[in-house]
């Protein structure tokens, strides 16, 4: 459902041109869980930005859920981003003085839904991540892992076609990281397409497909067989 | 202190720096021009009028009953008023007058030598010569100096509306206008025969010094339909004592009067310039506001370092800068902007001066005033930047190594 063809993204500095993405092609089907790996400065972030329509590209074509983004104006792109894509950032990026409810609610405000509908969706999304009881809490009252789960709920609330996660467990200790990864896998099994940038090779191996980016180009694309069962651990609900 | 680097960092914040520059320039322009206005007005007020303003008391009144329409009645009451006033301790002399110096409008007429009817065609100011119809004491009251001849005496007294030729005294500038190269004594004008010339004093501050034309007569005018002025000369520092008693004295003679003006000539001059003074107050008030606002901007501008450049400042400290260095860094940056602002401000001052001059009289700016304005602004902006500079110096070096 995501098709990138020969994408190039060039940054023009004062005297140097940097090819952050170079002749980059990638196709992701519905339901895949893709891990994107690569060394620092390889273009992983640029790829995520272009895929997430946060940034433009200079050459090539990009089709998301059957819609080509070529020639779209800002309104149309924003629409697309709002409806099809859900973002999860490394440092959660919750608004500190909004309640959990308001944080999850925020993307829905740009859809023109009624208050009732929004409430329904927010509650559903929080249920999915197991934090429905904390709707009125502030982010500072939750642990890092819980905050990230709220961020995931926010990404899910709009029922996106694809989740883009940028090092989602980068700021979490191993216990919380585990919980978050479990959640992501669960969502993937329920049908959500996920692309995740990660440094952790273990995480990379647990997903169905790996893509490695070096110097702005894809170098490797491994497909793993889906793991039958995730090793679970009893963890205190931190 | 790396000035070049400082200038470069200013360029990075083009918008903020530009805003502050313009504010400084406009504030300087306003400060200097307001000071010019204040000084101009002060000069007007302090101009030597030639009269002892603090020793002259003025009473302005109207009669309220119809009895005063009878000319001889009105005149006799006035004479009695003056006699009683002169008995008050501290009073040197008192007289009636149809007008006061330094006022708008007044009692004017045209004056020319009887053989030179066309004089007014050469000099249009001869059309509006101030007439001081009073008694023989007016010269003493105004403290006028004789230039030629003599002042009027009791013998020169002429009854109102008399058709006889009367003796008059004129001011020196009127003499120069009518008889530039000869003595004026004995000459006959359409206003009377000249027996004396007094040195000029300020009658109309709006006219040039050599256009203070006036005629003095010994023909007191007391007409019910016109407002009555009494001008009283008092001993030094006796003014308030006399002022306290005047009302009772006058009303004691005849109570059907409305005394609606009782002031010294000094107060009279102040009220003549009341609107000009008011404008100065408005401008000064605006200056203060403007300096406050610009100080707030300077403060916000310097705050930038704390909010946006915490890491950079920390790095500087980590590399060896002392707290004092940081304070000087922030202050120097402010002084740089301030200096540039003053440069532009000179242009703003001149421009502002030109704009204002279209509507009011205003002197041109000079170097001393410019320096003073620059000084005030310097102090204000340094004070405003002091606190942010201090706070910036408190940023700990450890921040340099923080990654979150």
């Amino acid at each position, binding site marked *: 459902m995501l098709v990138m063809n020969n994408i190039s993204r060039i940054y023009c500095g004062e005297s140097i041109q940097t090819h952050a993405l170079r002749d980059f092609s990638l196709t992701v089907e519905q339901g895949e869980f893709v891990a994107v790996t690569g060394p620092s400065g390889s273009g992983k972030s640029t790829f995520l930005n272009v895929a997430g329509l946060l940034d433009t590209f200079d050459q090539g074509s990009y089709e998301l859920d059957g819609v080509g983004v070529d020639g779209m104006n800002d309104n149309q792109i924003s629409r697309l981003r709002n409806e099809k894509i859900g973002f999860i950032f490394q440092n959660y990026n919750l608004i500190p003085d909004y309640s959990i409810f308001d944080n999850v609610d925020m993307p829905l405000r740009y859809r023109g839904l009624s208050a009732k509908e929004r409430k329904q969706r927010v509650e559903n999304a929080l249920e999915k991540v197991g934090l429905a009881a904390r709707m009125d809490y502030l982010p500072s009252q939750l642990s890092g892992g819980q905050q990230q789960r709220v961020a995931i709920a926010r990404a899910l609330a709009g029922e996106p076609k694809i989740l883009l996660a940028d090092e989602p467990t980068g700021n979490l200790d191993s216990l919380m990281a585990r919980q978050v990864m479990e959640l992501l896998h669960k969502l993937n099994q329920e049908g959500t397409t996920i692309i995740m940038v990660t440094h952790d090779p273990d995480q990379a191996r647990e997903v169905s497909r790996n893509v490695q980016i070096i110097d702005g180009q894809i170098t490797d694309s491994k497909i793993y067989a889906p793991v039958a069962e995730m090793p679970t651990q009893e963890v205190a609900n931190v | 202190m790396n000035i070049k680097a400082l200038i470069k960092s200013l360029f990075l914040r083009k918008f903020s720096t530009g805003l502050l520059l313009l504010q400084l320039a406009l504030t300087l322009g306003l400060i200097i021009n307001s000071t010019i206005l204040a000084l101009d007005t002060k000069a007007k007020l302090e101009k030597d009028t030639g009269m002892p303003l603090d020793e002259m008391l003025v009473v302005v009144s109207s009669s309220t009953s119809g009895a005063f329409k009878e000319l001889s009645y009105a005149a006799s009451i006035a004479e009695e008023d003056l006699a009683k006033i002169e008995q008050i301790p501290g009073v040197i002399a008192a007289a009636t007058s149809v007008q006061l110096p330094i006022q708008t409008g007044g009692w004017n007429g045209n004056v020319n030598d009887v053989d030179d009817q066309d004089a007014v*065609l050469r000099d249009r100011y001869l059309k509006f010569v101030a007439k001081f119809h009073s008694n023989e004491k007016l010269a003493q009251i105004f403290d006028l100096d004789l230039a030629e001849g003599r002042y009027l005496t009791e013998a020169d007294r002429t009854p109102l509306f008399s058709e006889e030729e009367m003796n008059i005294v004129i001011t020196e500038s009127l003499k120069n206008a009518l008889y530039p190269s000869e003595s004026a004594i004995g000459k006959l004008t359409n206003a009377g025969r000249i027996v004396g010339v007094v040195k000029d004093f300020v009658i109309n501050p709006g006219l040039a010094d050599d256009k203070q034309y006036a005629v003095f007569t010994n023909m007191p005018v007391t007409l019910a*339909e016109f407002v009555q002025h009494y001008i009283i000369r008092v001993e030094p520092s006796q003014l308030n004592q006399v002022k306290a008693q005047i009302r009772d004295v006058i009303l004691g003679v005849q109570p059907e009067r*409305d005394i609606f003006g009782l002031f010294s000539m000094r107060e009279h001059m102040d009220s003549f310039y009341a609107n000009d003074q008011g404008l100065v107050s408005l*401008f000064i008030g605006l200056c203060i506001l*403007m300096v406050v*606002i610009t100080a707030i901007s300077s403060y916000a501008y310097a705050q930038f370092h704390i909010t946006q450049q915490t890491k950079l400042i920390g790095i500087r400290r980590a590399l060896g800068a002392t707290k004092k260095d940081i304070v000087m860094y922030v202050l120097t940056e402010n002084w740089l902007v301030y200096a540039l602002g003053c440069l532009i401000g000179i242009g703003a001052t001149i421009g502002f001066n030109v704009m*204002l001059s279209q*509507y009011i009289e205003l002197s041109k700016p000079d170097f001393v005033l410019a320096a003073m304005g620059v000084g005030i602004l310097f102090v204000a902006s340094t004070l405003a930047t002091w606190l942010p500079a201090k706070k910036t110096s408190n940023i700990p070096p450890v921040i340099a190594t923080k990654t979150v």
Partner: protein
Amino acid sequence: MFSYYLKLSFINFKRSPSLYALVLLTLSVGIGLVCANFALISVMSGDPIPEKSDRLIHVSMNTWATETPHEEPLHILRYRDAMHIEKADMVKSTVTFFASGIYVRDSESESLARINASVRATTAGFFDLTNAPFAYGTGFTENTGKVLVIGDELNQQLFGGGNNVGKVLELAGELFTIVGILEPWHLRPLFYHATENMAFNNTDDIFAPLETAIDLNWAVHARSSASDSVRTLDESRDKNYFYLQSWVELHKASDRKFLQQYLDNYSQSLKDAGEHPLDIRNELHDVNEWLLKQEVVDERVLAFSIATGLFLVVCIFNASSLLLSRFHAAKFEVGLRRAVGASKSQILTQGLIESSLLGVVASVVAIGLSGLFLIFSTEMLPNLANLAVLNGETLIAGVILSIVTANLASLYSIYRANRYTISAELK
């Protein structure tokens, strides 16, 4: 969506209340000052009688009887010139008057205390021509007789208000009967007497018939000039004593040329009789032209408005730099919103609504401040005391100015917020 943006604006205000308060104060002070000035100028330059200001004509003539020329035709007329104007038949009505003052009391009052009243000695046409508003009674119909009309303030001072038509007043020993009482009547400026710095005076306390005033030798309280010697007013009718002013009401504005013709013919007839030594220069001015010519708008206020205008610019700059610091703080949230799908125009709308809301609040504070500044200004410039009025124009201007300046101040912040790439702040 609009209410959501409003909600977001309030949240923003709550986050940095002191900063927004400072921005609010800065803008309000600047706008308040400009509004106070604007109020003064708009009242000073206002048209006090718009329904007929182009049909009311003031007459100036050059009939001065000696060879010494004035720079301009005199705005004051002799009795014979004014009476000729009064006889004009191609016009709707005319009025001739002079300003005076007198001490007046209720003739039936026990107290002998008299009130100082301003007087307009006028022909009967005054009231219709000026649309004088009557509370009780009517104007007088002849130019003679011991009758008068009084204004509302004098009515309050003498009788405490009420219908006092028919009562008798004593004016310097003479008895006059009240035939009409006016409602409170504010003319800003006092167009019918805009000369001799009287343009900001109140309307007169007493209106009395012209011929009666002349016969009683009432004082002339405005400019008068004579080339003959004149002792008393009652012997001045056929002398060259210039002290009267005349206004004419035309049927329609284009009738002016007929009036001009009428006056020029008259002047020519004087010239032919050897009685008009100066050039014929009859000048007609309608209300607005006359006010302009008299330079009724105080130059000092104009000078001060330059200063307040520049001050407002400084205030906008100040607000702008303060808001810029907010922009830096807001970058994160804007980036986040863009990431979840807000378009640039939605972010822009949010910004504009926030600054407009700020503008609306600022306008309330500004108008309050402008009232204060207005009072302060007229304390400083006492001849403008009657003009301290916040008229409708000023209020509207204040609100518009507030919203515009608040948006201007936020412009750069909004522009910057729109330009940068989203991803930078979210890392």
